[in-house]
């Protein structure tokens, strides 16, 4: 990763809609050069995709996000992987992190308000 690539990434990370022209001006490079850098970052999957940060609570106030700490017993030969995979197949699960410390997995879920009952049942 060279310095120019890093600077382009930093500018795009702040705002993915910045176009090559703006970035070229800010970094004092040609538009062509910036387009090339972005194309490379995309094809190398360093830039994975351009997503939108949505404030869902403004769209639907029934929606909630929760972080759940999960303790599991590793399976023989597969460790945490099998259970982690099972967990992230649930559509409500947005991410699963392997943690060090008092518990094993941190599961981020998104769904309707908690009063509606359990969102995901983890066996």
């Amino acid at each position, binding site marked *: 990763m060279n310095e120019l690539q890093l*600077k382009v990434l930093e500018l795009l990370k702040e705002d993915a809609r910045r176009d090559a022209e703006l970035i070229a001006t*800010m*970094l004092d490079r040609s538009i062509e050069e910036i387009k090339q850098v972005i194309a490379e970052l995309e094809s190398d999957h360093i830039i994975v995709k351009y997503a939108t940060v949505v404030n869902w609570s403004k769209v639907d106030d029934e929606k909630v996000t929760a972080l759940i700490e999960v303790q599991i017993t590793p399976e023989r030969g597969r460790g945490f992987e099998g259970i982690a995979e099972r967990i992230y197949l649930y559509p409500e699960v947005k991410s699963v992190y392997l943690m060090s410390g008092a518990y094993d997995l941190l599961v981020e879920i998104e769904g309707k308000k908690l009063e509606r009952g359990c969102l995901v049942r983890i066996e």
Partner: protein
Amino acid sequence: MIKDKETVTPRKEMADYLSPMARGIKPSGIRRFFDLVSARKDVITLGVGEPDFTTPWHVREAAVYSLETGKTQYTSNAGMPELRGAIGQYLNDQFAVEYNPADEILVTVGGSEAIDLALRALITPGDEILIPEPCYISYSPITTLSGGVAVGIETFAKDNFKLKAESLQAAITPRSKVLILCYPSNPTGGIMTYEDWLPIAKIVEENDLIVISDEIYAELTYGSKHVSFAAVPGMKDRTILVSGFSKAFAMTGWRMGYACGHTDLIAAMLKIHQYTVMCAPVMGQYAALEALSPHGLEEKDRMMESYNQRRRLVVKGFREIGLDCHEPEGAFYAFPSIQSTGLTSEQFAQRLLEEANVAAVPGGVFGLGGEGHLRCSYATSVAQLTEALDRIGNFVAKVKQGS
């Protein structure tokens, strides 16, 4: 004896009790303008001369830790020895100037106090203080308060607002005593290179002047590295170098600055400092010490890069709008000319605020040579700058069409 609650009417108007010097100085033109701004909604302001970064966390944490460990007493009047040592080391590393922390460095309440102390220590009533303009707005009022006579020297956009030897020479009289320099410049963004300094140094020498060099924007140069006036051969003993942490380290609210110079000058300034403020705030001193650590310097560089990116955006924007904009090579201001619109800077700024909801400072408030320009600080977010440029572009097009 005056009884409780009994009111006694003063014999004169209250203003008549004030000293002629306090009465004589004008309120800050920037403040006056920004009182108008605060009354409006949805204004984008390019007005304030202040970083948009919050002080980096590790610097804030150093101040918090100093409180936790009970560091709440006065420090040595000149500032903590460790901090003076760090400032000396920093100035030497960055700008190749050498000061002895023991008696050539004084930690002050912002660069502002350092300027005040320097002028008070030097001025005998009637002395002429040479001030290249357009410039930072505090030099002339403080000169007046100290009994000096401020003599403006106009600088021009065609010279990128550099101070020219001819202009300096023309302003000199037998009463000239002090030259105030501020490069990189607020409000123009102009800088002086080593070659630019040489003829100035010659005149300073020939006329036996003392220089107050306000180098608070020294870290903010884009292209060539800042050359301190004190680093010009023969100039160190004639120069009081003023700087501080407000701009480069994003620490305006902490009020941390310093002055460096010949021990006799610093000793005189220290006397005034002792009687007026005792010492700079101790938490701020701990924070400043952290700001000069390797980690702090790294953060500073990160912020500099970000200003530079925004500077390019703004200069290009003004040029596309059709406003002449000399390349600002330092500080975080662009100073485009608005003469092509046929408006005065005051009219332009006023109408820009009312009709386009963008606030910037009319160049006229910065003294000679400022009229016809607008000071725009680009220390604000890219989104705001882009929007502000759009609004200014539409406004200028409208004015040029004559409506």
